[in-house]
């Protein structure tokens, strides 16, 4: 197997030889006359020391290659650009190395030389670098280390030459000298002024941190100097998924000092206020002893999490941070003060100053570094400062903004509860005041900025934001008004790129108009989440640390079973609540080793799960409790060949207690009996879609029979004149039919009652039938048939009376992989993954999807651009507003939760939390999201996790319908100035009739009046979610409430339930 070529043999042998003479002698002998071979090996021997990790990193860049062809200059004594001699390496960071160097000409002096790391030296970096270097030259400030020179080395590595500052990082300096808080503040002022100077020259530092602010003593006076100006920008890249992948090294800025706006994937919009933020962090650390976010925590967190913390987490005030620090005493000692006193000193004005610089919203920060310095000066001078404690209302509105979705749903709940309980006076007053404030802000934002389109747009968006905050506030205050306000149609269209020309816009792969998508959907989602009892609560995703999680869903989707190489046990999960139901084989781990189990199968009713272990024992477990129900002793040939999902049941005798067993046979479902298994003669069986007890047994494609699983008796044998070639038999039309393909080009429909033939569908062309499907109510039968070499045909028969419709489609050869039908529409997919949706009433497809990704069980579908369609409504779904990603980036989990999923990033749209993960996540074919960590591991030390998401559903609801529904539900409408005007009984009845005339967007769309403004709603949810034995008291409470409110219709329902 391992043949060796002469070149290989000689090359490796020559490598062993030491010294050029020995090698030459060996080559002479080994190659003989073969000059070409010798030349080759000689070249290779020459190149061998330079190979290094050439091509070994998995990515290939020309620069890297060029650099690798030449020796690296990064060693002491090397001379850069003919004039800088490297002396000593004094630092090493993500971007490169810092050396002390001697400048040899034109003047001799000692300088600092920053050598930018390889891999950052791409052409675009070099271009930016050059532009930046020239800009840096214009800075001249006593507190800024001058940039003296810069360029690229012979091997193409960029470098900066800077004034050598012999200082220590400002934090270390202050601690070593035990400077007091006031001294620290005083020392900090010139730092701000230095930054201000740079800002005036149009340069943003972008990476202010202690190690870039050095303090040196000049005649015993400490002089801070800011170094590394603009380096970040020159070598900076946008935060992309790539940088996430490569890790912190490429991040522009240091997470602990990074402004929230820097912690995004689009850093184009960084301005001087990012530096103000970083200055704030620096001051925070100088005073409180650690930066707002503990570096330890950032170190531990995944990058997504880091960015989230920076963006969203409100840091504690410096005084709070200090007083909760472990090293409190030593921090205080370094400031020559008693801990209590230091805390008291910071509390108040210092807190406010620092927190103003640290505002997440940069428009609320100090506008300039000088402004920051001036406030510190005012504080030191005992004057009134500009910064003031944030108002309660502002904090509230910020909170609401950050947690919009959760709050919407939660507050709908809470709102109802509050409405029922009654609002306390103070709460109401507070809420009113908050609203007034927010209203004022919204107005101010609209009025204040007149400077150009951008700021106007910005203002509008802010106004919308505030408006939403306001409405959410109202939702808490008065559910009825809140819902109505939120349901009002809003201006939703906007151009995300107003300043770009058409070409640019066309080149943009997607629009980012995410926040401003129709609000109605969002409200609908919130309302339905609340109103639809099924999804009573939002829960976080499950995550499981495992590199490769396997799973199986129960037929009804309520339960799933997972197992993986790490967590070996078979675990049962509740997919709606995301809770663990239990583990199988709790007592015998070895036996339950999933890798050794032959099969794991859910019963059709999802109530039981069946496993068979290596000893041949079949066990039947409850999916509710994960308890063992029964065992069937060995010797049953029930085996799973695992690669093609085949399970063969060859000989199984009567079983006693197992209600159902489902297995897969050659990728086709079949069911085994309720009380017994009838398998000796019958090779494959299929179950009806309904709870019927009939099954189809098919023996060797010859005999097709119907069996009753309750009695274990044969019901009937299908009346088939043909012998042989029966394929694909299944129940259809609500189990009234048994449909299968006979021979090559016939689909025959039999009665499921007596096995008699109802009709046979034949096409005169005689082309071979490839597959067929029957619409749910038996109205249509669709058949794909091989027609010519160039294409397949799609034939549609309509029942009652049976007739063939004109052909609606031509398909690529072998086009069908699957197709779904309902009574109005048909979806075809082909092997190339394109899909089309046809309406039977229209001749052309409604959609032609370029690449189809997944059709979920629920009938959602998405294409390659991640547009999501609801097959039932034939509408394209749009992510709710308030989300940071557009729908094109989103994917839909089984029950409708949007999840952004890329190779490296995953965000749960409901909680907006990043899902910790390393590489790939994917959606299961059912559309449920199950994540896998990478199963190949290229990096180092990655932690693998899997995640599973249960979630609420989002629906597209038209504004009119939504508004009407909510009006009916709350029995009133919004008058001028947002006043709630209740309807009288007559108006309400009328509106109810109007609503009834609308087609609901979804069968489960709440019935008018369903959403009550009291606790009823909550109780109903509890009732639905409760286990059987806990339902009774809830039903009693519900009866009591409905009786009291005079809702006789519903009271009847509860009475009936209680009497049952």
């Amino acid at each position, binding site marked *: 197997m391992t043949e060796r070529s002469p*070149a290989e043999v000689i*090359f490796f042998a020559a490598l062993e030889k030491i010294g050029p003479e020995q090698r030459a002698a060996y080559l002479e002998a080994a190659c003989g006359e073969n000059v070409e071979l010798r030349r080759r090996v000689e070249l290779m021997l020459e*190149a061998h020391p330079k190979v290094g990790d050439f*091509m070994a990193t*998995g990515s290939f860049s*020309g620069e890297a290659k060029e650099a690798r062809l030449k020796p690296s200059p990064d060693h002491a004594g090397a001379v850069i650009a003919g004039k800088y001699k490297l002396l000593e390496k004094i630092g090493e960071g993500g971007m490169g190395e810092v050396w002390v160097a001697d400048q040899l000409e034109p003047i001799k002096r000692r300088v600092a030389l920053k050598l930018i790391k390889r891999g950052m030296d791409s052409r675009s970096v070099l271009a930016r670098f050059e532009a930046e270097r020239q800009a840096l030259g214009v800075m001249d400030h006593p507190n800024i280390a001058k940039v003296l020179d810069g360029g690229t080395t012979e091997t193409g590595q960029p470098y900066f030459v800077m004034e050598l500052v012999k200082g220590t990082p400002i934090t270390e300096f202050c601690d070593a000298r035990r400077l007091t808080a006031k001294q620290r503040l005083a020392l900090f002022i010139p730092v701000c002024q230095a930054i201000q100077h740079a800002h005036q020259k149009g340069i943003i530092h972008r990476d202010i941190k202690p190690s870039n602010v050095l303090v040196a003593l000049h005649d015993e006076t400490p002089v801070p100097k800011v170094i590394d100006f603009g380096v970040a920008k020159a070598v900076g890249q946008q935060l992309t998924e*790539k940088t996430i992948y490569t890790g912190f090294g490429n991040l522009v800025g240091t997470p602990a000092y990074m402004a929230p706006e820097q912690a995004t994937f689009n850093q184009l919009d960084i301005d001087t206020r990012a530096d103000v933020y970083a200055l704030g962090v620096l001051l925070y650390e100088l005073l409180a002893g650690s930066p707002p976010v503990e570096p330890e925590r950032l170190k531990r967190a995944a990058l997504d999490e880091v960015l989230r913390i920076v963006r969203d987490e409100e840091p504690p005030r410096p005084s709070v941070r200090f007083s909760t620090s472990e090293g409190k005493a030593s921090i205080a000692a370094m400031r020559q003060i008693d801990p209590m006193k230091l805390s008291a000193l910071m509390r108040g004005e210092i807190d406010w100053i620092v927190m103003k610089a640290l505002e997440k919203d940069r428009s609320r920060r100090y506008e300039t570094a000088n402004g920051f310095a001036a406030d510190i000066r005012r504080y030191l001078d005992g004057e009134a400062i500009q910064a003031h404690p944030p108002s309660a209302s502002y904090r509230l509105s910020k909170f609401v903004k950050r947690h919009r979705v959760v709050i919407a749903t939660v507050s709908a709940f809470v709102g109802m509860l509050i409405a029922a309980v009654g609002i306390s006076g103070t709460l109401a007053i507070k809420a009113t005041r908050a609203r007034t404030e927010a209203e004022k802000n919204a107005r101010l934002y609209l009025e204040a900025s007149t400077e150009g389109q951008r700021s106007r747009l910005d203002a509008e968006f802010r106004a919308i934001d505030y408006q939403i905050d306001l409405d959410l506030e109202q939702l808490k205050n008065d559910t009825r008004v809140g819902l109505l306000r939120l349901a009002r149609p809003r201006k939703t269209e906007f151009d995300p790129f107003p300043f770009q020309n058409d070409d640019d816009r066309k080149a943009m792969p997607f629009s980012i108009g995410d926040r401003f998508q129709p609000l109605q959907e969002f409200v609908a989602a919130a309302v339905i989440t609340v109103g639809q009892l099924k999804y009573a609560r939002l829960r976080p995703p499950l995550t499981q640390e495992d590199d490769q999680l396997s799973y199986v869903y129960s037929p009804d989707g309520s339960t799933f079973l997972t197992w993986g190489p790490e967590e070996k046990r078979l675990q049962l999960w509740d997919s709606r609540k995301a809770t663990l139901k239990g583990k199988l084989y709790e007592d015998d781990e070895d036996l339950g080793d999933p890798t050794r189990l032959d099969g794991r199968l859910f019963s059709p009713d999802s109530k039981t799960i069946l496993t068979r272990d290596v000893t041949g024992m079949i066990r039947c477990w409850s999916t509710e409790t994960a308890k063992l129900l029964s065992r069937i002793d060995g010797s049953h040939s029930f085996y799973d060949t695992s690669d093609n999902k085949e399970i063969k049941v060859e000989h199984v005798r009567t079983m006693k207690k197992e209600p159902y067993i489902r297995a897969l046979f050659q990728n086709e479902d079949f069911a085994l009996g309720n009380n017994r298994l009838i398998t000796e003669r019958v090779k494959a069986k299929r179950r009806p879609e309904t709870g019927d007890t009939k099954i189809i047994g098919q023996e060797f494609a010859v005999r097709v029979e119907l069996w009753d699983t309750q009695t274990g008796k044969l019901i009937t044998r299908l009346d088939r004149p043909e012998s042989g070639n029966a394929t694909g038999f299944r129940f259809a039309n609500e189990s009234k039919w048994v449909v299968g393909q006979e021979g090559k080009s016939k689909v025959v429909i039999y009665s499921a009652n007596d096995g008699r033939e109802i009709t046979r569908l034949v096409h005169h062309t005689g082309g071979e039938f490839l597959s067929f499907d029957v619409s749910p109510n038996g109205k249509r039968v669709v058949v794909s048939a091989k027609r010519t070499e160039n294409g397949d045909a799609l034939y549609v028969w309509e029942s009652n009376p049976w007739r063939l419709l004109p052909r609606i489609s031509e398909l690529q050869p072998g086009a069908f992989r699957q197709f779904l039908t309902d009574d109005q529409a048909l979806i075809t997919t082909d*092997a*190339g993954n394109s899909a089309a949706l046809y309406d039977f009433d229209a001749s052309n497809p409604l959609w032609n999807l370029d690449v189809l990704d997944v059709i979920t069980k629920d009938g959602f579908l998405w294409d390659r651009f991640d547009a999501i369609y609801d097959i039932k409504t034939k509408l394209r779904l749009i992510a709710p507003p308030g989300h940071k990603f557009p729908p094109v980036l989103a994917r839909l989990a089984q029950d409708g939760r949007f999840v952004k999923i890329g190779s490296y990033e995953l965000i749960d749209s409901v909680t907006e939390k990043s899902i910790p993960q390393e590489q*790939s996540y994917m959606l299961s074919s059912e559309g449920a999201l199950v994540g896998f960590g990478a199963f190949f591991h290229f990096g180092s030390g990655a932690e693998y996790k899997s995640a599973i998401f249960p979630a609420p559903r989002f629906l597209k609801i038209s504004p009119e319908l939504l508004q009407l529904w909510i009006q009916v539900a709350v029995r009133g409408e919004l008058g001028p100035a947002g006043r709630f005007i209740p309807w009288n009984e007559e108006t309400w009845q009328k509106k109810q009739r109007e609503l009834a005339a609308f087609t609901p967007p979804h069968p489960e769309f709440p019935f008018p009046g369903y959403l009550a403004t009291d606790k009823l709603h909550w109780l109903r949810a509890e009732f639905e979610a409760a286990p059987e034995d806990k339902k009774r008291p809830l039903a009693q409470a519900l009866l009591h409430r409905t009786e009291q409110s005079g809702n006789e219709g519903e009271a009847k329902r509860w009475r009936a339930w209680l009497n049952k």
Partner: protein
Amino acid sequence: MDDFSQILAAVEAGEPLATEQLLTLVYSELRKLAAQKLAHETPGQTLEATALVHEAYLRLVGDGIDKRWEHRGHFFAAAAEAMRRILVDAARRKQAVRHGGGRVRVTLLDIHALTQSPDDLLVLDQALTRFAAEEPRKVELVKLRFFAGLSMPEAADALGISLSTAERWWVFARTWLLTEMQKEHFSE
């Protein structure tokens, strides 16, 4: 999914057409994935070929139910070849664009994203072609390692050679290619 396992089985059984079928399938899957990613990612982004290949594997081979590891070798051989074709195609197109060929903006983005240094990639590809004439088996290793991003043990596994042989071949191949590419470089 079914198609895929059938094709894999056919490759396993040594059916002559199956390899090409597999390649076509993997190629289109990779292209699709790449297009999908390009639609979402920042222009100028370099795609991680290896991540693409692995995602394709996940998608084609399925959802974790009993992966047949013996099929992996065939898959990755196909994926590596497919990835090489995609990258080289993209590089060629980029060159064509540079020399006044295409004017479609989207195409440009597309190419940008795939490789930042088309020249080098083309040089590498030429070198690989020459290498293939001398050492076809080692080229397979290079493709698996470089284009499909397999680790050394995985690549060794896929080729059915021992790890030490693979290591040896890897050093040899890279040195060979480096000399070849250097030649190219100097002659330019």
